[in-house]
């Protein structure tokens, strides 16, 4: 904290951050203000304010259905990727075995390759099995990045749990299943919760995969939003903005909840925070 004046570099950094925030706020506020505006042509502010675009957006885009679909997709994806990913993470955290690097590579690749790249072949395969366009297809597609994500975030979580605790439980005669439900489960709960929330954020926000595999009845919020922009000629810009505001509002809510449970920087490296 000493020598603020002596460090012009800091001031430059803060100025850049402030500039970024001001413009970011401008971008976000433009949308929010417009979503409440009666009409807005070239003036500083709209002619008047109203909330009817929200009602319009809700009706026009069938938002209740869309939100329901989004919720179901997200919950199923979370449930499956936790159920499948946590045991895999456990095995990776506890065992060294030949071919482990290959297994890790298989889990890293879906995260390292952009969704649209594997999304196109995946959609083709789903079409072949008549799964594309259905909710199952959307769920399956969203599992591709989510399962590896859970595996990769849970592995360091499990590594830091002392194996002696499990050994003790086993010594007392606990079987694998009860070790999992009675010992590891409670210890892993914060990690699982954090991973679930992040999977939730990712799934709700995952545009490409859902876009490539969704049909009329299985559209999630992001895709509905994108489609509404593309049909912009028909829809009022304000109701698109209203929907974008609803979308971002719910995402921010999810993220703020997530941040209460997990320090975002700790997902990458485990650090001892000095407090």
């Amino acid at each position, binding site marked *: 904290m000493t020598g603020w004046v002596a460090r012009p570099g800091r001031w430059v950094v803060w100025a850049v951050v402030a500039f970024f925030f001001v413009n970011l706020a401008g971008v976000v506020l433009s949308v929010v203000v417009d979503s409440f505006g009666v009409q807005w042509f070239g003036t500083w502010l709209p002619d008047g304010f109203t909330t009817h675009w929200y009602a319009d957006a809700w009706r026009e885009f069938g938002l209740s259905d869309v939100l329901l679909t989004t919720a179901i997709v997200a919950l199923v994806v979370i449930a499956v990727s936790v159920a499948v990913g946590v045991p895999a993470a456990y095995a990776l955290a506890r065992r060294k075995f030949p071919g482990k690097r290959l297994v890790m590579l298989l889990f890293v690749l879906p995260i390292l390759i952009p969704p649209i790249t594997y999304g196109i072949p995946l959609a083709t395969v789903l079409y072949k099995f008549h799964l594309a366009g259905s909710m199952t297809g959307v769920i399956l597609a969203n599992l591709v990045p989510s399962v590896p994500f859970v595996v990769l975030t849970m592995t360091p979580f499990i590594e830091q749990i002392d194996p002696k605790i499990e050994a003790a439980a086993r010594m007392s005669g606990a079987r694998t299943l009860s070790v999992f439900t009675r010992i590891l489960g409670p210890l892993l709960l914060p990690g699982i919760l954090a991973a679930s929330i992040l999977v939730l954020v990712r799934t709700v*926000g995952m545009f490409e995969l859902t876009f490539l595999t969704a049909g009329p009845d299985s559209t999630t919020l992001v895709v509905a939003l994108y489609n509404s922009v593309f049909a912009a000629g028909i829809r009022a810009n304000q109701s698109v903005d209203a929907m974008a505001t609803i979308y971002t509002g719910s995402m921010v809510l999810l*993220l703020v909840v997530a941040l209460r449970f997990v320090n975002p920087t700790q997902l990458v490296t485990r650090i001892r925070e000095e407090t």
Partner: protein
Amino acid sequence: MTTAAPARPALRHRLAERGIDRVLLLLVPGLLVTACLFLYPFLYGLQLSFAPRQGGVFANYARFFGDPYLRDTIWTTLGIALPATFINVLASIPIAYVLRGRVRGKRLLTTILVVPITLGTVLTAQGLIMYGGQSGWLNKVLTVLGITDEPLPLIHNYTGVLLSLVITGFPFSFLLTLSYLSGIDPSLEKAAATLGANWTQRFRRITLPLLAPGLAITFCLSFVMAFSVFPSAQLVGDPANETRVISIAAYHAAFEEYDYSMGSAVAMIMAVLMLIVIGLVMAWRGTLYRGATGGKG
């Protein structure tokens, strides 16, 4: 890969010694899901890309590289994704460096920086179109202040897509950089300071070398995000010309012309490009020092 049926106890023990035991069965569901939903479609797509509608095995690839309208999407994509990634990664270093220590309002600032991750491409695009448009606030302010005479063309072109990628990508790379930076023991820098190293020397000789492996990862992950610029290139860009990125070409082939074979071929080219860039970065990372503090990940 997993447990072989134990023929005799000795084999089972020998396997267990090498780390192969029943615990590995826990990997099976995860591997199955990834194999069925990622590996199989990918290989299917690869095979499909060699089975074009017409022509020989390599007809799709020949068409892609023969047609400038398709071939140039590679340069367009790299021309957008690489600068965006560089901006995001380079900008996040000083900001993370300042925010790493105990700064007042650190938690709030980090939260504000993280929240844009949730904005989503559509809100960003809509916002950019309104904020940066001809009669948007930005151009209004610039005109009022007398900085420009006529509105700057910021949207429906290259700049628009770049701005959108910076807005959505910066928080992400900042977060990664911040966490790698926080993983570096501050006492190392203090030690260097005691030995009389000034700010620049400390950064160049201590922090940067330790941070570099993490930066390589940050670069790769940010590049992955920027590389598939599909929605923003459509919405704030000029998807027919200046920002016709490779993902648009792939989507166009697969879902507008219903030529899945060609679509898969373009997707495979994308994957190869992606892996080349990541491979180069990781090869460079391999030459770096990976010590006890910054090497993880």
